[in-house]
């Protein structure tokens, strides 16, 4: 078999001692970077370009790819332990990971995250290996109309993410869309909601909002509620072991989310964040115990973790087969490859098979390293929860501040962070769910841009969303996913005021 021979050739490169060292260094650095909010893979990779410049291109890419998927792997740690997502792709992990940690199941949540990440990463490497060249067609088949439909489908998750009150969920989602609009409008160059401030011209960074509304709001809430320090530290870590029935329970979600995540990653511009949200909301919908999502359901950790790692690998498809970056991180990787004298694109498989297959093979090794590296670390890292509450709360606060400042070096962003912390606190006190706001913030901007782009191309004809089969299909699925839960509720004959 061809793929098998190629893979063996790839392993021949990836298993060279120096490359094994690079994989290890890459995933180790990535894990650390992922754990720290703010220091994302983008800036880490940009820093590494001068280091990789003198390397063999395959080694350089092996190292940098390791940092990238290592960061997504490690990003779940702070989401679970502190409710402070380390990278954007792991926001959805905090929905159930943090409640688990609060219940004293931090060890289990981290272990599930590690196993699911491993499976997601490995499954998607298999896909990458087998179908990457074919998938480049899929990646380009998505134009503005199709993206718009995909974002609509993603937004329907608001319904499943607003647990108690649909109306409050929708309000939160609208606020999220409004925040996503802040800044210079791409289509016209007009400033919107900037109030003349230079700092707002580029919009509000997603991570500032996420850290504020999740982590900081949690700190404020605990201060309000507990007065700090009173609660005795619980035996916070718990067991790492999964029972057989738990393994069975997460097997389905992990498998489905791995595939879903990979295909989301293949689409330029979609990536790990959207992939993890789609995985989460899909599982929440099909699970029998979907109501317990958000309260520490293990499937709610497994699904987004499998999806975000799979999406990360998937994003290498457009990079390596088309030479176009699908995200900020892959844009930096593309730049690094160009500097090393490799032109990613359709010809890369024939011109530089060493780079392509070497990286693919190294991803298998890297994922194993990540698992072996992370599992023994879990009890150590989770000890952070044993800290006295005042210390832990200040630590989270500092963590978020450094994270946000490290991203932009802007004091203004720190104030925004505090502001969103207060907004998040208010939302918690009045029962507004935070997840729909975050989801709408991620999707809102792409949805609006795609819609206007599509209409500009079609000359203002709305049929463009229905004429295209992919776009039509996605919209139909979106409609179904909105309609079915409502029908179900109807059938249960719940009076509308209770349903709301």
């Amino acid at each position, binding site marked *: 078999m061809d793929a098998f021979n190629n893979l063996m050739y790839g392993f021949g490169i990836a298993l060279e001692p120096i490359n094994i060292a690079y994989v290890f260094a890459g995933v180790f650095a990535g894990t650390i970077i992922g754990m*720290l909010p703010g*220091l994302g893979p*983008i*800036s880490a*990779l*940009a*820093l590494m*370009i*001068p280091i990789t*410049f003198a390397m063999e291109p395959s080694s350089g890419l092996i190292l940098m790819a390791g940092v990238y998927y290592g960061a997504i792997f490690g990003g779940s740690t702070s989401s679970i332990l502190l409710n402070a997502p380390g990278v954007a792709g792991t926001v959805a992990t905090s929905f159930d990971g943090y409640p688990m940690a609060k219940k004293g199941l931090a060890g289990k949540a981290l272990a599930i995250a590690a196993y699911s990440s491993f499976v997601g990463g490995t499954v998607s490497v298999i896909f990458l290996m087998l179908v990457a060249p074919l998938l480049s067609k899929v*990646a*380009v*088949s*998505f*134009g*503005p*109309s199709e993206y718009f439909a995909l974002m609509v489908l993603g937004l329907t998750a608001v319904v499943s993410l607003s647990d108690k009150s649909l109306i409050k969920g929708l309000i939160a989602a609208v606020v999220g869309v409004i925040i996503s609009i802040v800044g*210079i409008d*791409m*289509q*016209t*160059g007009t*400033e919107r909601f900037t109030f003349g401030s*230079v*700092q707002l*011209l*580029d919009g509000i960074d997603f991570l500032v909002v996420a850290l504020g509304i999740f982590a900081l709001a949690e700190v404020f809430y605990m201060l309000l509620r507990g007065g700090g320090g009173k609660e005795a530290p619980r035996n916070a870590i718990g067991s790492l072991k999964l029972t057989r029935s738990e393994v069975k329970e997460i097997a389905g979600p992990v498998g489905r989310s791995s595939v879903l995540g990979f295909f989301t990653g293949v689409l*330029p511009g979609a990536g790990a964040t959207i992939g993890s949200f789609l995985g989460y909301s899909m599982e929440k919908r099909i699970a029998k115990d979907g109501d317990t999502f958000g309260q520490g359901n293990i499937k709610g950790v497994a699904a987004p973790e499998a999806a975000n790692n799979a999406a990360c690998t998937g994003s290498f498809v*457009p990079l390596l087969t*088309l*030479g*176009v*970056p*699908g995200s*900020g991180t892959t*844009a*930096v990787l*593309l*730049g690094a490859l*160009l*500097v*090393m*004298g490799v*032109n*990613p*694109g*359709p*010809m890369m498989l024939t011109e530089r098979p060493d780079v392509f297959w070497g990286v693919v093979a190294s991803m298998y090794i890297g994922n194993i390293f990540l698992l072996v590296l992370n599992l023994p670390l879990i009890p150590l890292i989770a000890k952070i929860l044993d800290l006295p509450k005042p210390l832990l709360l200040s630590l989270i606060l500092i963590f978020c501040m*450094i*994270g946000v*400042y*490290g991203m*932009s*070096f*802007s004091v203004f962003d720190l104030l925004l962070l505090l502001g969103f912390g207060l907004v998040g606190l208010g939302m918690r006190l009045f029962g507004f769910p935070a997840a729909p706001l975050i989801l709408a913030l991620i999707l809102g901007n792409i949805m609006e*841009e795609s819609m206007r*782009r599509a209409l*500009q*191309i079609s*000359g203002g004809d709305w049929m463009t969303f229905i004429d295209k089969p992919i776009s039509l299909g996605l919209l139909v699925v979106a409609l179904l996913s909105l309609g079915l839960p409502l029908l179900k509720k109807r059938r249960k004959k719940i009076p509308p005021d209770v349903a709301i």
Partner: protein
Amino acid sequence: MTSLTLKRLSVFALPFAAFAGMSTAAQAQEWTPERSIEFVAPANPGGGWDTLVRTMSRVIQQEELADESFAAINVPGGGGAVAWAQVARDSGNPHKLFATSPPMILVPLAGASRYDHTDFTPVARINTDYSIILVAADSEYQNLEDLLNALKEDPSLSVGGGSAPGSMDHIAIAGLASAAGMEASAVNYIPFSGGGDAMTNLMGGHIEAVVGGAGEAVGQLGEGSQLRALGVSSEERLGGGLSDVPTYQEQGFDYTFDIWRGVMGAPDMPEEAVAYYEDLFAEMLETDAWREASDQLGWIDAYQNSEEFGAFLDQQQEQFSDVLSELGLLRQ
């Protein structure tokens, strides 16, 4: 523990450098840096400005051209406006430089920056890239004339680019349309979030053509490619992978467009400092390391010293404001 960030790394060297420099600078006539130079990329890592800053810093260090290091710093925001506002406050500072290119002219003209190029000290133009027009490999348009005629007949045909209306890619195509006797505003320009995004949409058949940077496109052309180039905006044909792409002028359209890149400094930078950097960058352009990096990135050297660069910028401003006002996007 948590903040091994770009900025932190880059300022490690500062305190030591300041001590070493103090004694020598006072006696010498010729100015040399007294501490490491903050070299600002007014954007996030990964873009054109960032690549320029990092490549220059690396070559200068590798070839040991300067006693002090060039520390790359990213100040993203507002298409450059945030960084400009920051540098503008640092009047007279000879240790602060930033990378620049046509947005330095375009963003202020669109009314999105309080500062324009006249607020800063031009140091040197470094190199240039050109604009290129691409269509799908199986497109019916064989040359520029085919495409422009089609655009004349059917103004709804879409041309994608990697930046907002009124920025580089839009000006490049609008100027060409104007030179071909069309109204600049008649082009249905579709802004995408980057050149790569626009090219994927072209490959997928969602748009008719793409206007973008030649350096960025070169990797997409050649054998087995899904794209085809119709023309470049340079005066003479480019080399390498683009040698068989005709210029606009060859095809009878009298129009050129430079995507120049250069370095500017804080307002009122001392003349001696400007002279130092002029020489340093001129020397850098002669090194093998620079040659190699430029070849890989598709850059073409286009050095101008401070005075020439300043005059060039004024001239660019005039030219761009004409096109922008034709497009109805001039807001100064």
